[in-house]
Structures are given as C-alpha cells and as structure tokens.
C-alpha cells in the first residue's frame, strides 16, 4: 500500500508545470487591467515557485526537506502580501473609485 514515489513521475514534469504557472502569472501581471487580477497573477507566480521548491525538496532533498520549509515561508509571506495589497487597494478605491490599472502610466518619465 506504500505510495512509491520516485522514478514514476519525473522531476521535470513538476518543473515544467511550475514554469507554465509562472509564465501565466507573468502574462497576467502585464496584461490585467483590474488591480485585483494583478494580485491574483502574483499569487499564480508564487504558486509556481512553490511547486518548484516542493518538487526539488521531494526529489533531491528527501531527508532534510528544506524546500518544504521554504514553501511554508512563501505561503506565509504571500498571505501577508495579499492582506496588505487588498488594504491598499481598498484605501485607493475610496479615493479614486476605480481599480483600472490603465489609469496608471507606469512608464512615465
């Protein structure tokens, strides 16, 4: 009944999945017009990183699992960042009544 992990699914499968998630996040970060969606895209990127860490932790560092500890720290920081981000968003929304990112001109001189 033991779940024999190694060899069956290659490490690279997880890494590719993580890269895909990360790149989707980057695309969303660039293209989203809604500030909430930008925050969601950042969460996608962080999840991609976490999959990377967990895969390395399981395949290369099975005994010391530092990657799992790293992933827990990332989850903790992501939660803090999301809370702060949404608080700032609320405070901005009260002033401006919009969440449209296009009203920022990011590349201003």
């Amino acid at each position, binding site marked *: 009944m033991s779940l024999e992990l190694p060899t069956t699914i290659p490490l690279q499968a997880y890494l590719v999945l993580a890269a895909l998630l990360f790149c989707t996040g980057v695309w969303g970060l660039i293209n989203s017009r809604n500030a909430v969606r*930008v925050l969601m895209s950042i969460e996608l990127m962080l999840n991609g990183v976490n999959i*990377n860490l967990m895969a390395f932790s399981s395949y290369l560092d099975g005994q*010391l699992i530092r990657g799992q500890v790293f992933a827990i720290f990332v989850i903790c920081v992501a939660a803090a*960042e999301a809370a702060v*981000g949404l608080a700032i968003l609320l405070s*901005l929304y009260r002033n*401006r009544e919009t969440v449209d990112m296009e009203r920022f001109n990011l590349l201003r*001189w």
Partner: protein
Amino acid sequence: MTLIGAYAVVAPTITSLQLNAGAIAPEMAVLIALLACLVVDLAGEGVASRWVPPICYAGLLSALVLLALQWDAPLEPSFLGSFLADNLAVAFRAVVAGSTLLSLLISWRYVESSGTPVGEYAAILLAATLGAMFLCGSTDLISIFISLETLSVSSYLLSGYMKRDARSAEAALKYLLVGSAAAAVFLYGASLLYGLTGGGTGLDAVALALKTSETPVTALALVFVLATVAFKIAAVPFHQWTPDVYEGSPTPVVAFLSVGSKAAGFALALRLLVGCFDSFETQWKLLFTVLAILSMTLGNVVALAQTSMKRMLAYSSIGQAGFVMIGLVCGTEDGFSAMVLYMAAYLFMNLGAFACIILFSLRTGSDRISDYAGLYQKDPLITLGLSLCLLSLGGIPPMLGFFGKIYLFFAGWADHQYLLVVVGLITSVVSIYYYISVIKMMVVKEPQEASDAVKSYPDITWSVAGMPSLRTALVACVLITAVGGVLSNPLFNWASATVAGTPMLQRAIASALPVALG
C-alpha cells in the same frame, strides 16, 4: 526512537546548539522599541505623540551602541548559519539604523500635521528597519527572503500611509505590485539555486554548487536574483517604480527609502554577488557595468527636466546609486571601501536635503522647485542647509560628497574601469548643473522675483513639538556634510576597516589580485 534519529540528522545534538544570538542584539533593541511603541499607542493619540519619539530614540541609539560593540568582534555564524555579523554587516546596519533615526527625527511634525497616528507610523518604520538590518547580515536564502519581505511590506505600508491623499495610495499600490513581482522573480531564482545545491539554502552551499555547475541554469538564476537586487537599489532599467513612489509617498518615508532601503540593497548585492556568484564574476560585472552606466546617465539627465523637488531627488538618487555601483564593479579593496564610505556620506547629505524639503513643505505646502525662488531672504537656514547638501550631492570640493565621489572614481580608475569613470565624471557635471540651478533659484533671485509661496512665508517658529527635533536633524546633517569633508579621515579609516574585517570581501580581493597583476 525515530524522533531521536531525526534529531541526529538535523543537528547532532539539539541541546548543544550554538545559536550565538548575541549577534542580533541591535535588532533586539529595535524590536523592543517597536513593541513599546505599539503598547504606548494603546493609551491614545496624545500619550503616543508624547512618548513614542523618546522610545524610538532609545531603541535606535542603543542599537547603534550595540553595533559599535560588535565591531571587529570574533566572527561566528549565528543562528546555525542564518546570520553573520561581520564588519560589512555592522557598517551597513549602522547606516540603516542611522537613516531611520534621522528620518524619524524629521518626520514627527509631518506625521502630526497630516493627522495620521504616530504610534503605528513609528512601529512600521521600525519594522522596515528591522527587515533592512537583518537583510544586511543574512547568509541564507530563506533569511534573505523573509527579511527582504519584512522591509518591502513595511515600505508598501509606509508609502500608503497618507490615506486621504490619493497619490500616496497610488504610489503604495504601484510599489506593492512591482515589488511583489520582483519578490516572485527572486524566489524563482532562489528555487533554482536550491535545486542546484541539491538541498542547501545557505549562501556558502550555493556558492559551492555554482562553482561546479556550468549549465545555463546558473545564468538564469543569476539574472533572476540580480533583477531583484537591481530593483531594490533602483538601478535603470529596474527603476520605473522609483519616481512615482518617491513623489507619492510621505516625504520622511522617501528619506528612509532612498537611504536605508538602498543601503540594505547594496549589502544584499555584495553578499549575493561577491560572496555567492564569485565564480561568475565576469558575467555579473559586465551586467552591473551596463546597469551603472544606464543609471548614471538616465538618472542625472532626466533629473534636469523635473519641476518637483522630490521627483528631482528621486532621479538624482538613481544616479547616485549608479556611482556606488562603480565600487561594486571594481571588486578591489578600494572599491569596496569607497562604496561603504559613499553610502555613509550619502546618508548625511541626502537626509539633510530631505530635512530642508520637509521643513519647506511644512511652512509653505509646496515642493515645486520654482516655489523656492528668493528663499534666502525669508529663511536663511533652509537656504544654507539645502545649498550645502545639494553641493555635496553634486560633489563640489570641500564637502563630504566630493571625497566620497573622488574615492569611487579613483578606485574605478585604478581598476581600469575607464568607461565607467568617464561616464561618471560627465554625469557628475550634469548633476552639478541641476543642483546649482536649485541653489541659484533660492539665492540669486531678487525680492520682487520671489515666488508667491515665499512672499507669503510664515514667521519662523520652532516652538511646536516635533520642530526642535527636525532642526536638530537638519543642523546635524548639514554640519557633518560640510565639516565631514575636511575631517574625513576617520570615515576613510572606518570604511577600510569595514572591508578588512569582512572575510567574504577579503577572499574576493585575494582572488581578484592575480588578475589585476597580470
């Protein structure tokens, strides 16, 4: 049984762990001050505005004293390799703590008159300091990440602290989105490094793994990690958040961000690039040469066109970061100590300039450069202080900034970085032009040419609480900027002792020496 076996793997005997926690005593002082601020704040706004300032001074001053005691102390990694209090860490932590102390001195009046709670402001600024100080000494990817995020999250909160002012919230949102994306990119690079080491997160393990692996993965990890460092020190082309965040955030916060946060960023750059990516020296030096040239050029040229004082200082700080990068690229003894020296000089001249700007905006409610016209007749103190600090930033001889800059250029020239030094000299001349034009605006204008803001200048009073501390900070910064240049020998000694007492930098210098000879 399994429990004991597991302990044996993590650490031979968990009871005999040598935490060596004394290394973070200065941070403990800051942390105690932070908690005390929060507790005092519970008693109401009136009590807080009375007691929070002395608590912060006590915490930061004792942190500085404790840092001085750590100077040249025998080196032992503390927290099982998470933290190292070498002289480099001590010096940069002192710069961070000093910048917080000065920013707090100049911020009380500003915070009070904007009607925002003082206790929480001080607590968040102290948390940012805590993160920056830990960042200077972290030697482990996880510690670096957590301290980086403590600094960043507190900075986002501080930028958005004027919540009735839409610009402040906009600056905070922009800073948060760009900063979190940069953190995610850093994490991706860190995860690749973790995979490369096969399960180590310490920087020495990473450095060891990087020596043996020549695959493209290291280049990618280098670029990802470097992008985050460049974001933190606002190097072009990772600077785009800087002008908007600097313009929108409360001015005292900008003072902290432009010095404290940047110093922590440079400490991180030294630790990562010199200590960890030393096997890829040519690559990262090339990248940083490009970044330095772009930063010096763009920062100083665009600053010419600014009409807002804060925005001009934002661009000038981008240019100044470019000058400091010359020292980083050299990688010689002189280069490193010039970096440390210039950061210390930058602390005083930049915060002095910010103190003057805050004082002016408290009295007139403006930060447009044109509103400074004819100021010398109404307020000689601001005129004198701002002139001296700007001259020093521009690198005019008797000031402190001149010696810092000339040392950087000298180190660059000695290391054959001719292109960097020439670009640095040319852009320095450009920077002198816009610094002088502000001074000209204040001094040369006739009384009838003075701006409306200056014509209706209020009477100068220092009696309101918060003003005396602002004056103290202003006078101290201006004095050190003006006199420090002539008496800069102790600073030079301090900077070279910093480099001499840092094994990591000594190793880098020793490994670079044969190349320089040959």
